[in-house]
């Protein structure tokens, strides 16, 4: 069955074909320079993200790692354009995706999509709409992002479900999110996200609600799908090991600042900041089952 849904069936849209001609890493699509996000009144504001600068190239896989309260989710929301028109105050010397200025205000209470950027959230149970069937939620996205005759929509819906390994089409199309298992929900969310043809997929804690084995399946799938679509992937997570395995580059956030940018492959040797080295050591692994004490950040280095 998986042979039927082969890679050949995806027709790249023109913009993606254009990117194929250039080496992925050299084309920055996301530019952030001096990005600061603060909440509250101007005279008494609290900065969640302070003076963060980085770029993401087409097809890059970047991870933002940090503990709760480090500002990583706020950063992701700002990049997805979801903080425009809210009480959050976003400033930056440059903040753009594909030439679109992400600082531009929107007047409406309803956030507006930044073309080419799709964001998935921690838990598919809350990201998917509980009241509509999977078929309807996926169908809406397929119709919006592909030029299709109405009667071809179900075919494309099936195609995308097949791409995430969901073969039991008839049941899943009619199912609502709460009728599926956690792993299936996560796959459905990925199918919808990829069907929206992103050039940058932002994933906020994509696996922290999942069991380890399902988490691995989901990350494998997400990597494969974004690679195939030539889309960049920005994952936000507190799980350093997961990021090591699935990202090319890791940004470490502490108290709103990016304290380290390092290639994932070299993080164990090249990490310079004490906090990064501390984080690396205090992730529990199966090898440390017989140590007397687990390393903690306090025992490794004082943060900040």
């Amino acid at each position, binding site marked *: 069955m998986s042979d039927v849904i082969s890679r050949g069936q995806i027709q790249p849209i023109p913009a993606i074909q254009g990117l194929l001609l250039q080496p992925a890493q050299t084309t920055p699509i996301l530019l952030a320079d001096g990005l600061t996000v603060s909440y509250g009144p101007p005279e008494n504001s609290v900065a969640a993200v302070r003076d963060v600068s980085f770029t993401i190239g087409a097809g890059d896989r970047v991870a933002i790692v940090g503990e709760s309260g480090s500002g990583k989710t706020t950063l992701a929301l700002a990049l997805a354009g979801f903080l425009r028109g809210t009480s959050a105050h976003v400033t930056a010397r440059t903040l753009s995706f594909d030439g679109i200025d992400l600082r531009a205000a929107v007047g409406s209470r*309803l956030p507006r999509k930044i073309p080419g950027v799709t964001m998935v959230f921690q838990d598919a149970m809350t990201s998917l709409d509980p*009241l509509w069937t999977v078929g309807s939620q996926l169908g809406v996205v397929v119709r919006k992002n592909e030029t299709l005759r109405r009667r071809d929509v179900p075919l494309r819906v099936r195609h995308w479900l097949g791409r995430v390994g969901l073969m039991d089409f008839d049941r899943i199309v009619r199912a609502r999110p709460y009728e599926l298992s956690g792993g299936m929900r996560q796959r459905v969310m990925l199918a919808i996200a990829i069907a929206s043809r992103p050039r940058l997929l932002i994933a906020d804690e994509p696996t922290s609600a999942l069991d380890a084995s*399902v988490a691995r399946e989901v990350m494998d799938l997400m990597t494969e799908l974004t690679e195939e679509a030539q889309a960049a992937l920005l994952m936000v997570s507190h799980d350093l090991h997961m990021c090591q395995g699935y990202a090319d580059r890791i940004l470490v956030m502490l108290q709103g600042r990016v304290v380290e940018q390092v290639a994932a492959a070299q993080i164990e040797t090249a990490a310079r900041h004490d906090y990064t080295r501390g984080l690396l050591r205090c992730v529990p692994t199966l090898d440390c089952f017989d140590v007397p004490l687990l390393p903690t950040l306090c025992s490794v280095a004082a943060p900040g």
Partner: protein
Amino acid sequence: MVESALQGLQTHSIVKRFGHGRHSHVAVRNVTFCLVPGARVGIVGESGSGKSTLGRLLVGLDTLSEGRITFDGQDLGDILRSRARRLDYRRAVQLVAQDTSSSFDPLRRLRHAVRVPAQQLAGLDQAAADARVDEVLAALGVPEHLADRYPYEVSGGQRQRFALARALVVRPRFLVCDEVVSALDVSVQGQVLNLLKHSCIDTGAALAFISHGLPATAFVASELAVMVRGEIIERGSTADILARSTQAYTRHLLDAHRVSRHGRTHAMQPPAAALVQPVLAPQGFGARAAHLLRRQRWWLARLAALPGQLLVFALLAFALVRMIPGDPVRTITGGQATPDKYAAVQHSLGLDGTLPEQLGRYLGRLVHLDLGTSLLTGRTLTSEFAQRLPATLELATMGLAASLLVTFIASAIAVMRPRSLASVAIRSYAGAAGAIPDFAIGVLGIFLFYATLHWVPAPLGRLALSIQAPPRVTGLPFVDALLSGDQAAIVSMAQHLVLPVLVMIVAHSAVVLQQLIAGLDEELDKPATLFRISTGAPVSTVLLSVYRRALPATVTMAGTVFGYLVGGAIIIESLFGFEGMGQYLTDAVAGADLTAMQGFLVTIATVSLLIFLLVDLCNMLIDPRRRPGVAKDGA
């Protein structure tokens, strides 16, 4: 493994089943497990494996479906039935749960939360309890000043330490920890795990550590038990299981933790067996029709509840009327009535004979839709109400429909353009929901628009006096006017309706509006909305989904308002001189007509029940999760 038959917590082939019949689900299946003093056992498994349920059973928070649990050789059921032994047990066996944000009283300081078990379970006096609290907090490395804060004023990691302190303060012999570090950052996890492991070693407490995180469990526990689909498939020392488990499932779990660090598994994994579930869609016409009927019978289940509810209301009306003090028969006949006359009135009110006889006659008549005969008019109540109820329902429906229209438009403006002046005005109006009662607005409206401005006709009925009422066809006055095609009647009736409907809008749309705006505000910020926007769904789709999710609460509120408009029709109808149920009730009360009052109560209650039936059915249509028999989580 040699198990002590007497010491410790032991389960004997326990089963825990949730739900009944076809919908039942077995969470714990035939588990025999023991926790002997001093042991540290990690119970690992994926979500849905039943490990949390097992934990709750061990501490006696859930009842068993089958099997039994013994504590030091005594049956747990017996222990829990006796107050003294229950306290001993609670002191010996403590649970620490995952979610610390909801397990602390937000209104009390953390010190209080830790002190209470020391006083109530360990029986310490205030000073001794305080000393013990300080001792435990110091052992856990909690800064002393944090104890005087409220639960929401400390971080999740600190709160988890207080949860641990609250359990350790009574020096338990057995500690059950359910996912205590899963919500914490890795660096904090290490601290809590170190504390937990070493306080168990130091105090000799036995530990059952339930978690889906294998590395953390392996560190804390000296033994591991692996759970799948409600069963423990393997148990052994941590080193043994990690190094040489014979179970394929356990190795699969271990691999999942080992691999993530070293990069993706390059071959695309086939979906795990658990993800593939059998096809439910049936084949063939007959089977499909039966399937459809099964799927769609949710509303039948709701409908089946109706007769019972009606009976309750009928009994209530019967009782209420008989609780009115004084003798209604004497009120009607006057003091000098002959015994014959007295008996006749008593009979016509249904008050003769014993109470059970009265009740029997009353219910017998109700079954035949006979509410009795009005004492004042001599006509059957059924015919009286048939004449008046449609008019009242029509007015209430108009009021509700107009209110809903205003509500929807106003809510869209308030939510979509939050900074506009209109939005501010709408929100302040909604905020003042129900502050001014409808009779005040009605009187004010009549004074302003009729007496001062003369924009509307006099509040003396549905029609100008000079115009003849259209022939009765449906009983709904305005519909009858439309059917008659009499232009003068239609115009006059519309003119007379403007002010009452306006009063109902002003008086009653605020509560519905408040509910809807609050629901929309909440739903707009949810990930489900952001995800839809992020994947490029059109604005109309996004709005439709937001409104649909906010609607059920609003529909319920609208049902309440409609019930009020029908039951409380007396106010609008008397203000504007409309004929209807409200006016009839006024007459019945003035004439002490018990039969009429009883009939009125039953009729209005029936209408209310039907309204709420409609509300429920609407909400089940909007939100399929509300349909009976729908599993909330299919995992």
